[in-house]
């Protein structure tokens, strides 16, 4: 019998949330213990995905497919080399996040954990869905718990931040919904079959002028989520106001959903439109890199500094992704994981400081390393990982990204290196002002160093940072087949749409029979 392992990983947190509902809220320690155990268990189960994952094939694995609502709406799940690690990242960070909020959350502990668990289900669901309907359900449903997490447990301007977060995300996703409807109906008109299967759309050739609009709708939704340059304004607000755990999840996983959306939907479904918009998107990503970095330099608030560093780093990830070569795309996926770890860890560090001093302003600190030596080592490692010091994970990702960009466009490559320089500048400067120098604030003197629980938060992250920095092979090789497949999918469809007669194609571009199907579909679409 096949065990539906993806469903288990996705819905175990939800089941746990349901269980928690019936535990009286006075027993908060029980609740926390159950949630922590459950999320560790979920991580262990998700590890099975890694070990049983076959790196040779690009086809989706662990596929589960059941009829659900008819009309092409199926319960269809599966993962490939791209989504595998994003799921692992989510399940890996969840226990850490729960542990980090052990003392920080004092009011409404029960509700907090319920929302955390629902959020986990939503995020994993986004990464495993192979049906556009299912994907959209998770994509939107995930907003609700995040909305409450920021809105109830956030800082002073939490309501403003959370409403902004929801509305920004919804603008994009509602337009994407219309685009999904359009895809759905044009697929039906062309083939007579209702389908929302992602891979059907990968095979489905759409006239380029239609692609432009659909691509814009999808790209807007994902660009807001990433966030790319002009759509990033919700991010600093949400990050600053969110509780530590919310910020960690937001930075580490939620932003990756946007990048994942580009890889899974926007790029392979609309290759022609992608070709048109590629230069603009690359420039926007580059602006994001430099603008985010410069903004980070001038922040007075540690959390918004880290938030802007996120904008800058996500810019690099997107730029690499838009370079459309294997090195760059693998680099960008790898960098997504790195960014998840290092930015998540930085937010945890900020959270540790905030729990002690209840301020996020850089000027209120100074000389913290004198009273918290253990913490200062951890903070330093996390920061250097974010800067991209060789030996740590950030280096591998950044070097792959820059190499990849260089293969495609040398000017962009030179400019995008600025992310590393800027990161070094703002992070090291921040570290200097917060951790080193004389103690200016008397409050800092009474800081206690990390206790065992807090050390346990950092140890797994830091071990993984070293591991990923020294030995990236087990990660990268699992992606190879999927990335190669993705890039191939973006290329040949262009050839088909330029309507080169099949006979005139050179041998190495000989199109397999699947693509011949496509040529027919195009003709059908063109003839009303």
């Amino acid at each position, binding site marked *: 019998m096949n065990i539906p392992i993806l469903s288990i990983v996705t819905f175990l947190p939800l089941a746990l949330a349901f269980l928690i509902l019936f535990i009286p809220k006075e027993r908060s320690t029980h609740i926390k213990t159950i949630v922590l155990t459950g999320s560790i268990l979920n991580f262990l189960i998700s590890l099975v995905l890694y070990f049983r994952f076959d790196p040779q094939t690009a086809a989706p694995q662990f596929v589960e497919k059941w009829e659900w*609502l008819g009309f092409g709406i199926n319960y269809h799940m599966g993962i490939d080399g791209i989504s595998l690690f994003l799921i692992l990242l989510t399940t890996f960070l969840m226990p850490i996040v729960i542990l980090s909020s052990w003392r920080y959350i004092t009011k*409404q502990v029960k*509700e907090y954990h319920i929302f955390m668990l629902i959020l986990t289900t939503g995020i994993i669901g986004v990464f495993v869905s192979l049906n556009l*309907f299912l994907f*959209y*359900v*998770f994509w*939107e*449903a995930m*907003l*609700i718990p995040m*909305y*409450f997490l920021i*809105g*109830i447990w956030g800082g002073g301007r*939490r*309501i403003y931040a*959370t*409403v902004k977060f*929801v*509305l920004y995300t*919804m*603008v994009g996703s*509602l*337009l994407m*919904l*219309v685009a999904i*409807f*359009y895809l*759905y*109906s044009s697929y*039906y*008109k062309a083939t007579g079959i209702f389908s929302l299967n992602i891979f059907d759309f990968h095979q489905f050739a759409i006239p380029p002028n239609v692609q432009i609009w659909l691509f814009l709708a999808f790209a807007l939704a994902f660009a807001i989520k990433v966030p790319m340059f002009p759509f990033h304004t919700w991010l600093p607000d949400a990050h600053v106001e969110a509780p530590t755990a919310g910020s960690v999840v937001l930075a580490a996983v939620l932003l990756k959903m946007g990048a994942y959306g580009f890889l899974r939907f926007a790029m392979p479904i609309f290759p022609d439109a992608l070709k048109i918009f590629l230069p603009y998107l690359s420039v926007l990503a580059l602006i994001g890199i430099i603008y985010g970095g410069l903004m980070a330099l001038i922040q007075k608030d540690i959390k918004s500094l880290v938030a802007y560093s996120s904008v800058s780093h996500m810019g690099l990830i997107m730029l690499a992704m838009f370079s459309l070569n294997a090195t760059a795309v693998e680099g960008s996926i790898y960098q997504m994981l790195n960014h998840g770890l290092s930015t998540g860890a930085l937010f945890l560090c900020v959270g540790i400081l905030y729990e002690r001093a209840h301020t996020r302003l850089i000027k209120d600190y100074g000389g913290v390393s004198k009273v918290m030596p253990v913490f200062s080592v951890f903070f330093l490692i996390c920061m250097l990982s974010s800067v991209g010091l060789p030996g740590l994970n950030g280096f591998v990702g950044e070097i792959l990204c820059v190499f990849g960009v260089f293969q495609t466009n040398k000017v962009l490559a030179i400019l995008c290196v600025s992310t590393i320089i800027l990161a070094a500048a703002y992070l090291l400067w921040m570290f200097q002002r917060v951790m080193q120098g004389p103690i200016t604030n008397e409050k800092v003197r009474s800081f206690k160093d990390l206790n065992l629980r807090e050390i346990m938060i950092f140890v797994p992250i830091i071990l993984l940072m070293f591991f990923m920095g020294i030995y990236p092979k087990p990660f990268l090789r699992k992606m190879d087949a999927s990335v190669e497949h993705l890039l191939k999918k973006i290329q040949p469809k262009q050839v088909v749409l330029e309507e080169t007669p099949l006979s005139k194609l050179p041998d190495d571009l000989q199109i397999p029979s699947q693509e011949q199907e496509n040529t027919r579909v195009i003709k059908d679409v063109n003839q009303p």
Partner: protein
Amino acid sequence: MNNILALAPLLIITIGGLFILLLDVFLKKDNKDYLGYISVFFLIGCSFVCFLFWNTNKSYFNGSLILDNFSLFFSLLLIAATFLVILISMKYISLQNSNHGEYYALLLFAFAGILIMLSTTDFIIIFLGLEVLSISSYVLAGLKRNDTKSSEAAVKYFLLGSFASAFIVYGIALLYGAFQSTNILSISSGFSSSPQPGVMAIVGFGFVIIGFGFKIAVVPFHMWTPDVYQGAPTPITAFFSVAPKVVGFAVLLRLLIPYFKSALESEAIFSILWVISALTMVIGNLAALRQTNVKRILAYSSIAHAGYMLVAVLAQDAVSLGYYLTVYLFMNIGAFSAVIALNKKNKEYVELEEYSGIGFKYPWIGVTFSIFLFSLAGFPPTGGFLAKFYVFSTAVRKGLTTLVIIAVLASLISVFYYLRIIIHMYMKEPTLDVSIHTKNPALFLVLFICLVEVIQLGIFPGSILSFIKEALTTMSLF
């Protein structure tokens, strides 16, 4: 004899209403709750009879009375609505000092009017039903006799309602002039047989649509809605927000299905409906943004929802409209029940300020209300999302992409005000001391039913959806 049998659903309800009026005289003031149970009993009886007629699809009294699956489906839907409304009324009216026997009798009479409207294709009879429904509604709106707002609602509803009825009558007269018939089917066959229908026919048709536009509360015929919804007793508001709307759409469907079948896309009525739909969605949602009274917010939200339903009408998809109406019924009655749950003796909590901190103080009410609001806003995995998904995806398939873009942007606006209620419930510190009367099992039953349905319709709509399909495709006019 068959003819008399076919009257059974209607007779049960009317007799029930009269019986309750009579019984009211003999019952002591403390025992008036029994009237509610008795009316529920009559409703259940009526639903059994409706099931007996299922799939018979016959007409009686020379075509004046039609019991096809279409009418039975909508009747059953409204039996459910009336049933839920009676359950949420029981405690409410004794707490708010309007515990009169007439209350339940009038509700049953209103429902009888609905039954008449649903089971006919003759305009004169539709009009009769409409008046029975409307006159009962006017009285129901004003039942809180000590409350000026309630009296205002009744008068406003009466004035504007009779104005709309006049439009309908005039429209019917003009249509009769054009086609020498008051039967919907012969009118629509008249439309389809003559390529250029005269001015009289078009104007008559337009008047009828205006009249029904008032009943389903679409812009620009929506002005009465917020005031009436605010003033009427809250369970009656719940009834108003669902029953006239469902009936209005059912009649519109009967009216428009044959018309659309023959109409070109560029025809006047089509484009007018298009504009009305867009305006309804945008204005309904925009106006809700500034409201601070929860009942008014829900009133504007129900206007906006009429706009989404019109999209389904324009897409000529009866099944997705039926689905939308079903979901709407449960989520809207659910939302109003949550509002009703927050009341005590002679006091209702309806201002947004009063909702601060409610979510944690009364967790179950907070959670269910939030789920209804998320469903109204169209978040998955609730029924509200799936209903919108069906309606909008069909509309895009029928080429109404622009309208759908307007619709989704309008629903984006709606997210803001639905979230505002939730913000008050969960994210603000309580400013006022709110205490509620919690002993209200019937109300909690309704909350539970609505909650289960909203979630079921969002995740496993299988059996209900196939029921709707069975009911609405037998019209075989699509």
